[in-house]
């Protein structure tokens, strides 16, 4: 009997310890032996309410043979935890209770529960805006910052929800709305609370560099891929490739270009002239002419060669007239090489 009494007084002291530790978070359902109580568990890492994404109320009901037999443990209520995570929580506490059998374990169990829930303090599922997981399932990948709307507890990537706020602002501005309505939750349409706006503002401030960088990055990329020099470069590449294919081998003129950079100068001016007034096709001609110029006698049917010569002699004449160096038009390409080399002397 005295042993029993000892146990009972020990258990009651334990309940008092739980009450002292958790205060209002603890609720005594049955004070006499065997005791039954519930504890509201929140993550240790969630001192700031905006950083709390999960919580649970667990019930611990001691059995008559406690602490020889572990108490009955269940989840009374939870937020932000799906079935899988609830099961994980309850299984972990139960196995802990088995490990501790014959010890007074109330406080230890509560602390264990807090530990587990602290590890699970992240929102679940996907961001409703980008549809990618809020918290990476793969632990190696870097988690993106996310935030919870205080009014409705819906979670988003901070970047995603900030973009939505920015978009709403832009729409309001463009429509000239005097309305100071800042927006609402994309999921449930609840109005943003001032705290939410503060959070978004803070995020935009701290991460504006990041955001701006990302945006400008993609913009730059687009600009670069669409710019004239890049287009010209691509056209040139395509033409070179075509010629290579036609001749089923390396494009020989590449060699003189690299050896004599001066030959390149008039060549690069022709496409700029032609592109401005006509089309890519005429640039094509320019490249063909280059091919011809250096490998004059070797290939191509004679008719085609003549055609290119004609079309280009006009253009080359106009170029030379600009630089006030007029070679006789009949002489065409060979003197031109002479003139460029002559040019290089002074």
């Amino acid at each position, binding site marked *: 009997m005295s042993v029993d009494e000892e146990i009972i007084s020990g258990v009651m002291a334990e309940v008092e310890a739980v009450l002292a530790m958790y205060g209002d978070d603890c609720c005594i359902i049955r004070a006499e032996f065997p005791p039954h109580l519930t504890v509201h568990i929140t993550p240790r890492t969630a001192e700031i309410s905006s950083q709390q994404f999960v919580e649970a109320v667990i019930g611990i009901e001691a059995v008559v043979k406690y602490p020889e037999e572990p108490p009955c443990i269940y989840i009374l209520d939870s937020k932000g935890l799906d079935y899988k995570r609830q099961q994980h929580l309850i299984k972990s506490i139960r196995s802990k209770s088995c490990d501790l059998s014959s010890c007074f374990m109330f406080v230890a169990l509560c602390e264990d529960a807090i530990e587990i829930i602290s590890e699970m303090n992240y929102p679940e599922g996907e961001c*409703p*805006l*980008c*549809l*990618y997981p809020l918290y990476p399932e793969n632990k190696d990948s870097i988690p993106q910052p996310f935030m919870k709307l205080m009014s409705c507890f819906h979670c988003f990537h901070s970047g995603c929800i900030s*973009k*939505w706020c920015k*978009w709403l602002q832009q729409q309001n501005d463009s429509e000239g709305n005097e309305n100071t309505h800042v927006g609402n939750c*994309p*999921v449930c*349409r609840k109005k943003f609370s001032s705290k939410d706006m503060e959070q978004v503002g803070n995020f935009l401030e701290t991460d504006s560099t990041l955001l701006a960088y990302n945006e400008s990055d*993609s913009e730059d990329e*687009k600009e670069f891929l*669409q710019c004239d020099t890049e*287009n010209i470069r*691509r*056209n040139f*590449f*395509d033409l070179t490739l075509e010629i290579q294919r036609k001749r089923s081998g390396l494009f020989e003129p590449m060699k003189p270009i690299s050896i004599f950079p001066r030959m390149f100068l008039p060549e690069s001016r022709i496409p700029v002239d032609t592109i401005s007034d006509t089309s*890519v096709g005429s640039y094509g001609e320019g490249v063909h002419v280059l091919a011809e110029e250096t490998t004059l006698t070797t290939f191509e049917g004679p008719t085609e060669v003549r055609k290119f010569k004609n079309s280009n002699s006009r253009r080359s004449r106009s170029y030379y007239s600009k630089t006030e160096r007029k070679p006789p038009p009949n002489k065409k390409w060979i003197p031109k090489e002479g003139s460029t080399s002559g040019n290089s002397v002074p």
Partner: protein
Amino acid sequence: MTSSSSPSRKTLSKIATNRLQKELMEWQLDPPCGFTHRVSDNLYRWIIDVIGAPSTLYAGETYQLQVDFSDHYPMDAPQVIFLHPAPLHPHIYSNGHICLDILYDSWSPAMTVGSVCISILSMLSSSTAKQRPADNDRYVKNCRNGRSPKETRWWFHDDKV
């Protein structure tokens, strides 16, 4: 000349592309009941076959929805219209424009193509009469220059159908 020299091809933002790819992937894994996405290589225009729900006025009938996405998707609502012939419905104009608030003022970026499709099917299903809107002719005449339904100022007054 190869594809690299055709600058006209539509380029869209990374955000829109990622989101649409994700939506398409999820659609393929678990398509909403009664809808078929026509396979195409254009991520920014979806053609979706809608089959009228059983035991409604449109049971067994098939219509086509055309969903166009802008560069600002999902912030900006997609443009959703019925291709010809549009179903006879008090909120669907003969040019395919749909009077449905979530496509315009009440759009939210948390909505997806799937959820929009389901809303439209539910709108069809709750109809009690196969008829055009009262102002059909006037509206369609005003839209003759190919105006998008997103430019219309809609009045949403009927929450029954």
